[in-house]
């Protein structure tokens, strides 16, 4: 119906795309400071690298600064503020596996 191949070619010289980043956390906001994960904790100025997120073994995530403050304020063994399980930082490999298994309700 239409002539199919054209003699025109488009050569892309440069493609400047725009993207936004996100911590791929299950929740929107940090349970401690109630600020957005993709934002930053109240003590920080810049989001992203300057104010990273950390996951616990229970798969709950917080701003690193927030949870460290929490952990340091606990006298005895610290617990996760969300589920009261003993707080342990999740190893990165473990987290990745957790994602692959797609079992968020693990904790």
């Amino acid at each position, binding site marked *: 119906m*239409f002539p199919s191949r054209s003699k*025109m070619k488009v050569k*892309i010289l440069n493609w400047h795309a*725009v*993207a936004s980043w*996100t*911590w791929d956390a299950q929740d929107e906001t940090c349970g401690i400071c109630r600020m957005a994960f993709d934002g930053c904790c109240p003590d920080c100025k810049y989001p992203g690298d300057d104010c990273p997120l950390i996951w616990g073994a229970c798969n709950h995530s917080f701003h690193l600064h927030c949870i460290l403050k929490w952990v340091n304020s606990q006298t005895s063994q610290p617990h996760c503020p969300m589920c009261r399980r003993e707080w342990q930082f999740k190893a990165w490999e473990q987290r990745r596996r957790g994602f692959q298994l797609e079992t968020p309700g693990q904790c």
Partner: protein
Amino acid sequence: MDSLAEESFGEILENWGGFVACTETLLKGKGDPSVGSQLVPLVATLCVHGLGSLAQDHFLQSLAETFKTNVVSKFWQQFHAYRDGPRLNVHEDWREEVLNKSVEEMWTDHEDWHEEVLNKSLDEICTERSYMEKCVLVLVHALQSYDEGITKGNIEFQHLHSHLISRFQLMVSSVLLTTLPLHFPEVLRLYFRKKLEELSTIIAGEYEDGCESQIDDHYFNQQTKRSHLGDMDTIGTYSAIAISNDNSLVKSIGKVVRELRSLGFTSLTEDAYASAIFLLLKNKVHSLAGDEYRSPVLQSIKDWIQAVPLQFLNALLVYLGESIDYDSSASGLKSPLASCPFSYPGIDTPSEGLVRWQLRLEYFAYETLQDLRIGKLFEIIVDYPDSSPAIEDLKKCLEHTGQHSKLVESFVSSLRYRLLTAGASTNDILHQYVSTIKALRTIDPAGVFLEAVGEHIRDYLRGRKDTIKCIVTMLTDGTGGNSSGAGNSGESLLEELTRDAENQENADCDEDINSDEKQAWLSAERWEPDPVEVDPSKCGRSRRKIDILAMMVSIIGSKDQLVNEYRVMLAEKLLNKSDYDIDSEIRTLELLKIHFGESSMQRCEIMTNDLIHSKRTNASIKASIPQPSLEGADQGKTNLPLNILDVTIISSNFWPPIQEETVNVPSSVDQLLSDYSKRFHEIKTPRKLLWKKNLGTVKLELQFEDRTIQFTVTPVHATIIMQFQEQTSWTSTNLAAAIGIPVDLLNRRINFWVCKGILAESVGKDSNDHVFTLVEDMMDPNRNGLTSSGYEGLITADEERERSVASVEEQLRKEMTIYEKFIEGMLTNFGSLSLDRIHNSLKMFCLAEPPYDKSLQQLQSFLSSLVSEEKLEMRDGMYFLKK
């Protein structure tokens, strides 16, 4: 007793008759000395009978009679020629004008004739007068000789003499003044004006070849020593001697003045030559200042005052001052009301009269120049930086005249008339506002009058929707918002930011050095009382500091609004950057941070930081990806190397809401993007990328058989055109489906390619369905503009580009829609409500998330948008539900 009385009665009558006859002959005859001697015994006899005062009265009366009938009427007759014109229109305001004109016409007709008439008639009347004075002296003499017979007192004689003379003079001037024709002052004025003009042209000529005339001056000095003009260098930078050259001219003027004075026209004369001088000065000011704003004129006007009118006055005063000595009658005529300019023929110190004249003339010059400048202030401010000399002049004038309120009044009215109209663009108004601030800051550092003027502009600008946008553009763009000369204003605002920053630094230094006490002391010393015009209701020290940015912000109301608008604009700019070059943005941002505080600019800073991080991340991702990994991904497809892809990665929480549209980018690009995000995920471990596929810029090259054209377009445009690689013709519905965007959006976007002549549009089978076909051969001469080179194609698709960031209005609109239901509910209950009522009710009831925090203006604009959507109706300030 009776007989004695009768006898003496007869004697008195006889004597009286003799006296009357004598008087008559005396007045009519020309200086017959015998009459004087006849008079002596008669007067003596009358005095014996105590009729001395009666005799005096009669004498003067007949004198007056004669003067009036013979001399005065003749005198006025001379000027009769000038009477006809003015007589016709001797009332209303334009009287003087007409008078002026008609007399002037006469003047030009007869030129010197008039002057001669004046001179001649003055001479005549003066001789008459002096003759009469002699007659009076005869009488005085007669009386004196009688007195001497009795008292031998000299003092009484003195008294009598001056008494009679002054009575005589009073008589002369009263007779003249009562018969004064209306046009006579005008004649005098014209006479002086003409003379002065002559003089000033001579002096101007002298001034020009002043150097050559130096030697001559010396010569003239010698010659004119009598008038002591030679070393009159107390005044002026002009060669003070110039006037002496025209001594004859000055003398002739002086003579006229003296004669006029002796006739009792002292104040009339002074008025006349004062007004002539003022007229001359006014003309001079106008010719010097005129429409010239680029050079200061005040000094040259002052110089001129020194050179011409003051020289003239000086010469005149000196001349008259001398004349006092030998013509004592003139000095005796000084009326206390007419501030008679007398002068001690002092040489080194200017006489009091002269100083008074100088002050008067200078004040007049200040006032004239000020009025002239104020009238043109609008134009002056339009080309402000160039016209600063005019502003300086005006400042000096105002310092002397103190008529600031006049300035404010006239400037405001011209602003109203010329600037604050619908026709003026917001940019121009802002530009003028900035210039006004700067100009008035020079005139009045306290800022009181600026406040009065600025208020009007601000009020007006607040009513304009694009004010904020324009201000922000002026702040951020060095090049300015529009091309028509506003470049200046943009720069100036940016400059202002820079200057502000510098000031701040300096201020900081100052604070470090000075202790608080010292600071307080300094500021206390610097204190000046507010000008009288200050509006007491707006007192506040903060007003004192004139800060252009603060004044700009005060237009908007709050700095938050400005910052918000700036953020949107910044986002727009950053997203459209194809390189990561944001130096100028960072600089502006830093400056704004200094001005508005770090915390309010925090989000903007994160935005620029995102760009910096993106650049780094982009580089490291590109470095980390080995070429082979790509090959596996896009086998069988056009090989797109990763290095053509750049990504701006944003922290979306801190950016203004971004308009997202879905678009199916070509699979090759899609592949590239997903590769990129995979790498990102690996580098920034748990983080992921969410693509905003409709945003960004694409630089591409269309390769035809015979030519190539380069374009910089949006991804949507790129996607559209890439579809035509596979298939040269598409219907709009099919294409929209392939790309994954709505048809109407596609139609809008594809227009760009149609405009560029790459695609051709035709109506398909279905009238709603357009068919777009690739134009392959461009042999058509109509399009040779395109074929000649690819250069034109480089034009970016800016005019087509939709905003990538939701504008502030759109955001507001989104926020306001929550309240739409409330408003509708209110209106169903109450029928109609005013804006205030709605505003207050919303404030009262919408406390839950999100609380109502909008301003009245915001609500108003929302309501009017509802009206335009035909949801509401507005009548007489009340809102109704549309039925």
